[in-house]
């Protein structure tokens, strides 16, 4: 199994542009530490990189700081110390416009989905394009196709509260994918679905990775991780171990 994945990985399309820019890590942490208020450091001395077109799991026991690490990458919290570099830009030095620009290059799937309950599924998935000021007519086909692709074509007029957990999960993933992000962060994306669907979602992420997106999946589902021989970032006791 693992070998097959490796083979597939080798089959990945070659980078279109063979420039230095291609090799800049999507995410780079150097000696990063985080503490909330005056409490102890939740994350200590994190130093790692996430390369372009890479696929990795972020794992560790509950409360180990997986979500905090994702929030650091999302730039929703700032590190207490150390340097966080996203897409080659040092986070503490960018202004709000720069922050928005970087966020538009990443997609995020939240553990609790965070779909907007007053918008239809179609509107939810189209949201990242709408906030960029694009006209509805320009992205209608894209959104419809993506919704069909994740099997929600018939549900696009439905409001999220009436959807099942799996459907919400897929809608959240579709929303993260609609902009074809360079980096996908997924927090427990299989936490709310049955194992079969979890595997299908995993396949979706693998395919996305083949198309050139760096994928980080935070999970503590060992069964899921065993399906793929991918790099594992293991958080424990505030430190990070990398299992290549």
């Amino acid at each position, binding site marked *: *199994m693992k070998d*097959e*994945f490796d083979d*597939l990985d080798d089959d990945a399309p070659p980078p279109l542009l063979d420039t230095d820019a291609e090799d800049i890590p999507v995410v780079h942490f150097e000696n990063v530490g985080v503490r909330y208020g005056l409490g102890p450091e939740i994350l200590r001395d994190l130093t790692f990189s996430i390369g372009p077109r890479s696929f990795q799991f972020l794992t560790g026991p509950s409360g180990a700081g997986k979500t905090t690490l994702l929030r650091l990458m*999302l730039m*929703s*919290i*700032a590190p207490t110390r150390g340097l966080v570099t996203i897409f080659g830009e040092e986070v503490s030095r960018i202004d*709000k*416009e720069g*922050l*928005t620009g970087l*966020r*538009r290059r990443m997609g*995020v799937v939240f553990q609790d989905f*965070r779909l*907007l309950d*007053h*918008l*239809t599924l*179609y*509107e939810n998935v189209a*949201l*990242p394009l709408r*906030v*960029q*000021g694009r006209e*509805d007519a320009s992205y*209608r086909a894209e959104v*419809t*196709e993506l*919704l*069909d*692709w*994740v*099997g929600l*074509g*018939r549900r*696009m*007029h439905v409001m999220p509260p009436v959807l099942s957990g*799996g*459907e919400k999960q*897929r809608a959240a993933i579709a*929303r993260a994918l609609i902009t074809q992000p360079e980096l996908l962060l997924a927090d427990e994306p299989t936490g709310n679905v*049955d*194992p*079969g*669907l979890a*595997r*299908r*979602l995993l*396949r*979706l992420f*693998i*395919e996305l990775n*083949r198309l050139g997106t760096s994928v980080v999946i935070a999970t503590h589902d060992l*069964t899921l991780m*065993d*399906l*793929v021989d991918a790099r594992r970032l293991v958080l424990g006791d505030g430190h990070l171990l990398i299992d290549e």
Partner: protein
Amino acid sequence: MRRTHTPDPFEEDALDPLDASDPRQTPLDIGHGAPQARVIEPSSVATPALTRDAPLVPVDSAASRALMAVIAILTFLAALCAGAAEIVAANSSAWRASVAREATIQIRPRAQIDIEALVAQAAALARETPGVAAAEPYSAEESAQLLEPWLGAGLDLGELPVPRLVVVRLEPGADPDFTALRAALADIPGASLDDHGQWIARLSAMANTVVAVGVALVVLVLVAAGLAVAFATRGAMAGNREIVEVLHYVGADDGFIAREFQNRFLRMGLKGAAIGGGLAVLLFALFGRLSASWRASPAGDQIEALFGGFEVGWRGAAVIVVIALAVSGVTAIVSGLSVKRMLAGASQ
């Protein structure tokens, strides 16, 4: 050996992610049971429109309805103030115009002087002045009639030193040289000219005060509306914190979020202001009708003589519309600014 966990309901049709020969060409069937060809369903056919132009921040909360009521009430009060000020301003200019069309020469009787001759002389002098249409002396009987309400009928006023009046009517638009007339009248003992300037000044002062108070009240109402909106915006931001956060994560900038809130509040402001302003216009129309029906009665005549008509007229209606638009504008601008300030102050 990997799948030693609970039975998988999708086991039969579940595709192992890694068994797919080439995922790029395989349909990703997620949750629909049997694998199927990647057919784009004609899902957009015969279904409701995809875009409803739904606001990104929800609108139907009790708080926003309360804010709309506050805006309606404030607009209504401001419109009443402005309408009342407009009525006073319009009527006072009518009063001033009619008062300014006349002047009065008063001649106080003196012993051993024939007052009739003096009155005739004064009237003649007035008639000679350019811009004077007519000068009509009040006869002794007419003067007595003027005093009748105070002194009663049947009194012989011959013994009393009652001043005599000459009413000088001016030609419309004329500006006679009252100084020259006053100088000429100085030769007539006991004569004095009242060009009603003092009255006009008092009326103007009163009307200006009322208008100034009206403007101040309108400004206060706008400030109150702004404050109410600022607080409501903070409440809406706090209530929609999750939505704002999601909007940030999906790549919305502060300007976009501020515009969303601004549009929502502008819509609310327009509705509230339209309700308040509309009610004020209706109320003035009702007063106009009532005063028209009273006009037939003597009491109505007196009221109208004192206060003038109750119609706000086109100018008043325009003022009310401007106030309603100003309230909506303040609503939108204040909400947009508060959102921007809050987002700028937020940690992210």
